[in-house]
Every structure is written in structure tokens, then in C-alpha cells.
């Protein structure tokens, strides 16, 4: 199945006591697309990522990845099936070098003849892809913020995911870094990855995403192309309040 949805969320809910962090959410992430999930702070976006990656169990509903239900599986099993993720608050291994952060995540490749590249070569490739080759022997704490985010992406790519979840990749970035991020995201799609990102930086989302879903108070209030979303009164209301939506 090369077309259709790589990830299907069906009637997914995650409650914390009386708080409905995610409630009755359904949508499909098309294979090969760049899909964005937006919504105000506290609308349940990161909770949704945590449920998809198995860090949290769903209260109800299912997550189907590559045609198989994955809800309830342990995280490491979900990762092996092909989902990678970066974190909103960067979670690198700070006591390891840049190289080792990627190397430890490197998925074992099936044995393949003479042309097979060594694991180290593939680490170097990922470091080159993310512009970190010159920093390979540094401790993580010596990297600047943008480099740390790129290293997280490189580490996630080392698990060879077909679906990459990026949790606010543009947070705290300046204009130069943002431009690079847009290039990187498009590049990853060209490499065959499906990108599913949470983001607050609207012009980035509108620029890069093929399709957008909007969460508010744990429920999906809209879904569509960037154009459709920009024109949707429910979205404008969620972000700016009712009077703007009616204006």
C-alpha cells in the first residue's frame, strides 16, 4: 500500500481523571504527506503524540499504523514498526557525544551484499544531512539550540522511521534556522518519509503542510488544506475569540 493513510486515528480519547485531554479525535495522515496538527496551548496535541508513540495508553479508540493497530503496544515496539519522534523539550543524551547520540539509535540493517554501508558511514550520512558533521565529537551541551534540535531529528532518523513525528520543531528558532527547518522538512519528505508535526509557528505550517488538523480543548474542530483552515471561522474563533470570527 503506497497510497492511502500511513496513520489512522479513530475515535481516540485520553482522559486524565475528569480532564478530557484528547476526546473522540479521528483523522488520517496520508502516506508521503506533510501533515500538521495545530491548536492553542493545552489543546491536547502533545498528549496525542504520547498516545501514538505508546508513552500513554488511550482511554478509548485506536491508532492504526501501516494497516496494523498499535495502540497499547510498548514504545520500543512502535518505534521498530517505523515511527520516530522528536520532543518539544529537547531530550538528547547529554553525556554522550553528538556521534554517539545518533549511533546508539541506529537500527540494525538487514545484511545486504557488498555495497552495504557500515553503520558508522550511515551515522556520518545523517550528521551530514542535518549539518552536524563538524560537531560530531562534541558533547551535546556544547551545541546551540538549533543544532540540538537537528541532532534530535538525526537521532530519530537513525531508527529508520517511515513516519516522523516532530513536536514543535520551530520552537525558539530564529529566521535563519527556520528557513533551514523548512528545507529540511521538505528534504525528508523527498527521502520518502511522512512528516507529522505539531507547530505553533503559523507561517511555517501554512508554508510547509499539505494538510492540517486543528485541535481545541481535546477535540478536532477542523481539518483541511492550509487555505481551508485559514478561512475556517471555527479555527479563527479558537485562536482569536468569537468577535474576530464574525468580523
Amino acid at each position, binding site marked *: 500500500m503506497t497510497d492511502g493513510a500511513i496513520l489512522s486515528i479513530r475515535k481516540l480519547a485520553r482522559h486524565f481523571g475528569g480532564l478530557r485531554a484528547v476526546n473522540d479525535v479521528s483523522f488520517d495522515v496520508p502516506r508521503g504527506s506533510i501533515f500538521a496538527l495545530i491548536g492553542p496551548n493545552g489543546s491536547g496535541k502533545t498528549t496525542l503524540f504520547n498516545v501514538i508513540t505508546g508513552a500513554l495508553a488511550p482511554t478509548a479508540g485506536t491508532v492504526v499504523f501501516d494497516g496494523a493497530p498499535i495502540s497499547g503496544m510498548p*514504545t520500543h515496539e512502535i518505534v521498530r514498526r517505523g515511527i520516530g519522534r522528536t520532543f518539544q523539550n529537547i531530550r538528547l*543524551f547529554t553525556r554522550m557525544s553528538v556521534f554517539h547520540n545518533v549511533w546508539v539509535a541506529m*537500527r540494525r540493517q538487514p545484511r545486504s551484499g557488498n555495497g552495504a554501508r557500515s553503520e558508522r558511514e550511515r551515522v556520518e550520512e545523517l550528521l551530514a544531512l542535518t*549539518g552536524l558533521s563538524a560537531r560530531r565529537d562534541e*558533547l551535546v551541551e556544547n551545541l546551540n539550540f538549533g543544532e540540538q534540535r537537528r541532532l534530535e531529528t538525526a537521532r*530519530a532518523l537513525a531508527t529508520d522511521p517511515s513516519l516522523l513525528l516532530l513536536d514543535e520543531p520551530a520552537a525558539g528558532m530564529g529566521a535563519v534556522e527556520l528557513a533551514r527547518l523548512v528545507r529540511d522538512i521538505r528534504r525528508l519528505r523527498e527521502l520518502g518519509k511522512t512528516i507529522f508535526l505539531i507547530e505553533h509557528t503559523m507561517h511555517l505550517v501554512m508554508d510547509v503542510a499539505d494538510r492540517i488538523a486543528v485541535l481545541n480543548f481535546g477535540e478536532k474542530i477542523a481539518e483541511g488544506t492550509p487555505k481551508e483552515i485559514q478561512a475556517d471561522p471555527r479555527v479563527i474563533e479558537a485562536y482569536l475569540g468569537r468577535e474576530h470570527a464574525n468580523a
Partner: protein
Amino acid sequence: MDYYVAIASIIGIHALLGLSVYVVAISGQMSFGQQGFFAIGAYLAGMSTAMWGLGLVPALVLGALVAGAMGFVVGFPALRVRGLYLAIATFGFGEIVRLAFLNVRYTENIGGRVVGPNGAEGFRHVRYVYDRGFTGLHYLAVILVVLVVVVILFFLLERSKVGAKLRAVEEDETAAAMIGINVTRVKVVAFAAAAAVAGLGGGLFIHYSTYIDHDMVALPLAIASVTYPLLGGLGSFVGTLLGAIVLVGLTEGLRGLQGMREFVYGGLIILMMIFRPRGIVDEALVLRVKSWLSPRAPREPVQAP
């Protein structure tokens, strides 16, 4: 001469105990119970040679394997808790083992001697080594050979991806799971391997001293075994070896300190936690040494974004 042989033997044995704590520590756990596995290894290896007629090598292997299996069994429930709770749970395990050996009687009369675990009397007359004409110096060589084998295994571990995975789990279990690591399995396997190393140290110890009793595997041994890696450093196993050499050398060498050992060790742990939380040989030092040793990569200028 005998005196220095004795100190070197104790350093070798305690280094194994320290390495056992080190393995647990670099997978993000802290154990105050490795002396329990040390005791299991000691009693089992002792019974093997003194009562069951096994040779030294099978006895040491059996002691290590049974301690490792116990580590596996204890590891599953114990590793559900973390930090202080795990420290207390593991110490509780150590005390259970100690009190078990305080009460177990399983003796035989061999040549007019009562041999075997004998409750509060301890386990005496494990004379396999000395009965075969070994001197203290010979046996020190045995200890060092075992230590070298273990050190080689640690050297390989530190270079392997398994070692890196342990450290990933130590630093951030969520991030570790998110790169495909089975966190529970890594922790339990590390704990079992650590228990086997402690058991090996116990087996070496009882054949060195010819006897062991419950009092020798109590809280002071737990504190000592934790102090070696914490003082020596968690960046490399070399730190633990260094810690054992310095601390055992210090307390055995300076007789005046004998009675104050726990005081000195406890104080050192607190000082290290404040001033150098990863110990003397920490990760930054390891990285610096590695870059000195490999002149291959000259520092390139920082690449423009």
C-alpha cells in the same frame, strides 16, 4: 610482603564488587544490595569446593551464575521502583540474604572440622586453595586473572552499542524507548549481569579468606561497594578500578583510619555528590582523553548554519 599481597587481593575482590555497582549505576539504578549477591556467590562457591568436591573454576562459575540468576529474579520486581526506593529495596534484599545465612545450617564433618554454612558461626574451612599448596601470592595471581577477564569484558561493553544503550536508559528512559530500546529488558539484564560479577567477587573472596560470616556482608560492605564507582567516576569503568585502589589502599594502608572507614566513605560520597557528581573519571574527562588519544580529527571550525 604478605601484607601487600593481602591488600592487593582485597583491592582485586572489591574492584569486582565496585564494577557490579557500576553496571547498575550506568543503567540508571542505584543498588545497596550487591553485597547480597556477593554473599550468594561466596557461600555457593565455598560449598562447591569444600563440600561438593568441585574445582575452583567451576565453583567460581557456579557462584557467579546462581548470583546472576538471583539478580534476574530480584531485578524484575525491584526495577519497578527507582531512586531512593530502589536503594532501599536493594538494601532490603541484601539484608534478607544476610539474615538467611545467619540462620542456615548445612554442615558436614570433614576431617574433624565442621565445614559448611553454620549459622552465626559463619562458613569456615574453605581451604581448597591453600590445601593445594597455593601461597597468597599465587592466589593473588588468580584474582588478577579473573579481574583482567572481567575488565576486558567491561572494555568491550563500553565500546559496544549495548553499553551505549545502558547509558541512554540511565539518562532518559522516555527518549531511550523512543529510539527503540526495550528499557525494562536493558535494566533487568544489566542488573543480572551485575549480580553475576558480584557473585564472582564473593567466590574469590571466600577462597582467599577461607571463611565468611553474615557480619562481613552487612551495611559497611554495601557502602564500600557504592563508594568505589561514585568516587572513581561513572564515565568509564576505569574510575571504579581507581576508586577501589585508592579507597582500599587508603584504609588498609593507613591503619589509623581502620575504625573510621564508614565515616571516610560516607563523607567522600557526600563531597563527590556536591562537587563532582559523576565522580573523578566523568564523561567529559573520558571524551577529552579520547580526543588526545586520537589525533586523527583536527578541530574543524564551527560550520555556519
